[in-house]
């Protein structure tokens, strides 16, 4: 019996080794699909496609694109920046039609590989293009404008004149723009509003967006001191802030990225709105454009805006709505500027 087990396992080992040896060249072949399917590949930044943040939104956008174009989609999650090239090449070598790279950190790798894989179109989410590169569309968002509108609502709704924001880290430019836009909007709406912004800079880069417990504690700490509207922006850390407000049952919360009424249902009662950055439709539309042949190189400005008020609709004052309307019109017309730097100034 004992001997048998050993023999069995040895046999298994040999078989699996043999399999591995024989089959090595094989898997390349089946990728040649019957008809020419429209294929979309997505490479995440260091992070996961289920991060409830930009990687996930982009992945949902890719799935939407696949559905709309009748194509297929796959993702690769990056575990280390040194793999950016390799992961993009994985799709490039397979002859994918669209390669979505997510996050500003992949900007250079995207441009470099666009030169190499000229057949593919690249969609760089959050990647500002200094100058147009053949085959690369940079999907960028004026997060400061979304933050600005959130700030207007927050300032108008605050009874104490104090509002707060619990953010991921200002190392990430979109987060910085959300935060500073929020500050600018609040001060624009009501000059004396006191805006406190707290970043989760005190942990490693990999942990700053994944700490809901900290987000909650921080939001509660702000509310203790009189802040009554909290903007939570920074993946799960920000979600923690929304949950903190929900549990305290006083004041209001404002979400980020998507309509968080849907993604953080526990905070429904206190959630005023969300500063949306519509990565999903933005990515999806660009993929459709590739399929339709209307894809253009260079920057594409995605939509930002505020989510509906939902359950708190009745509590939002007419004054607030009027001021928000004014802000939205001004921002759209370009007469109102947020004056937020694209990146946190070094000094």
């Amino acid at each position: 019996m004992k001997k048998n087990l050993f023999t069995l396992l040895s046999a298994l080992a040999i078989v699996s080794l043999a399999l591995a040896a024989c089959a090595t060249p094989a898997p390349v072949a089946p990728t040649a699909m019957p008809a020419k399917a429209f294929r979309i590949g997505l490479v995440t930044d260091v992070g996961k496609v289920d991060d409830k943040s930009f990687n996930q939104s982009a992945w949902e956008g890719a799935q939407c694109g696949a559905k709309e174009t009748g194509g297929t989609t796959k993702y690769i999650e990056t575990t280390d920046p040194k793999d950016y090239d390799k992961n993009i090449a994985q799709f490039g070598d397979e002859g994918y039609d669209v390669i979505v790279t997510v996050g500003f950190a992949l900007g250079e790798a995207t441009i470099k590989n666009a030169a190499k894989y000229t057949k593919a179109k690249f969609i760089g989410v959050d990647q500002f293009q200094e100058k147009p590169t053949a085959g690369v569309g940079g999907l960028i968002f004026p997060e400061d404008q979304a933050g600005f509108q959130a700030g207007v609502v927050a300032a108008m709704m605050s009874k104490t004149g104090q509002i707060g924001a619990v953010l991921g880290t200002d190392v990430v430019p979109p987060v910085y723009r959300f935060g500073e836009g929020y500050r600018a909007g609040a001060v624009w709406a009501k000059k004396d509003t006191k805006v406190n912004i707290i970043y989760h800079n005190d942990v490693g880069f990999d942990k700053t967006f994944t700490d809901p417990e900290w987000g909650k504690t921080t939001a509660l700490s702000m509310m203790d001191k009189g802040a009554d509207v909290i903007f939570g922006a920074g993946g799960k850390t920000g979600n923690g802030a929304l949950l903190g407000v929900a549990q305290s049952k006083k004041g209001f919360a404002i979400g980020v990225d998507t309509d968080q009424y849907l993604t953080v249902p526990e905070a429904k009662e206190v959630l005023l709105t969300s500063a949306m950055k519509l990565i999903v439709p933005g990515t999806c539309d660009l993929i459709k454009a590739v399929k339709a042949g209307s894809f253009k190189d260079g920057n594409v400005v995605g939509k930002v805006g505020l989510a509906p008020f939902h359950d708190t609709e009745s509590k939002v004052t007419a004054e607030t709505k009027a001021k928000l309307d004014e802000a939205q019109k001004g921002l759209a017309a370009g007469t109102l500027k947020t004056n937020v730097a694209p990146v946190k100034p070094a000094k």
Partner: protein
Amino acid sequence: MAAQTSTAGDRLRSILRVADLGRFGMIILLIIVLMGVVALVGAKENRVEVILASFLATLFSVATPLTLGALSGIYCERAGVVNIAIEGMMLGSAFFGFIASIYLKQAGLSDQMSLWLGVAAAILTGALFALLHAVLSITFKVDQIISGTVINILAIGITGYLNRQLFFQGNVPHAPGVLPVIHIPFLADLPVFGKIFQQQPVAVAAVLLVAITHFVLFYTPWGLHTRAVGEHPKAADTVGINVYFVRYANVLIGGMIAGLGGAYFTLESVPSFEPLMTNGRGFISLAAMIFGNWSPFGAWAATLLFGAAQAMQINLQYYSTSIPEGLDFLKKSQIVGMIPYILTMFALTGIVGRTTPPVADGQPYEK
């Protein structure tokens, strides 16, 4: 008469020694200093009592999982088994406790019921991880630090993998919420400071467990056996204590407490699980345990100090515009964030009193 006072004095001194009040006092002093810095900076913007109340509230909520982690370590290590797997145990229990609460809710149980059973599941998960640790390190005599490392890596891999497989692609779980707040009578009704006494069950349990652990370790036969096994297993064996049993039992108790700590994350603090959400707090608990010299009150004080450091970090950002000229480093959250780690290193140098691990800590026992 004189003899009597001296014996009473001796007794008091010996009680103080086991309670490690000197260390406790030193650490509390440090906390007061941190609190003072914040109060001074923030005094321009808020009333001092508001600042202090808010500071303490943050401090206690940060300290809760750390306290449970440290107590978990104390049970294991007092019995002679090093436990660096607290991080993995907490992460694993946070996940499985959360999962249990979701599925129980789906199965039709009330929110409250699913939450409480979720806590039980978290404790059970902690116990299972602890059992693995015990089997490896006590029975197989695997190096205890290695066994702990295995559990840490395993917990990260399994929770990350399962979390993806279960909750991705539109499969958003409907969590039953969080554990209810307990209003501690009278104290919870105090003005301003009242809310410090409005705590959720795990936080309350953490504080109670500090006192219980202290009592168990120093005033019960079980505690005596535990310490004997941790200090001198051979001698304990000769007087008839079953070394293996005592070690197994304490490691399991430790695992259960770490499991309760895990429950804090997903069932008490926020109703969601995120991969890696314990964010190194298990290692901080370990540091707190050593900082507190393996004594429950000392370790508790140390976790409060970590809580205070976190509270300071949050508050200094909040009051960043009021930070006086010349103290600009207090505005750099990364620099302020280093304070607890530097403090720990200082503490280990013996400034707060030398730390001495149980003598047989980390050594497998061979008959």
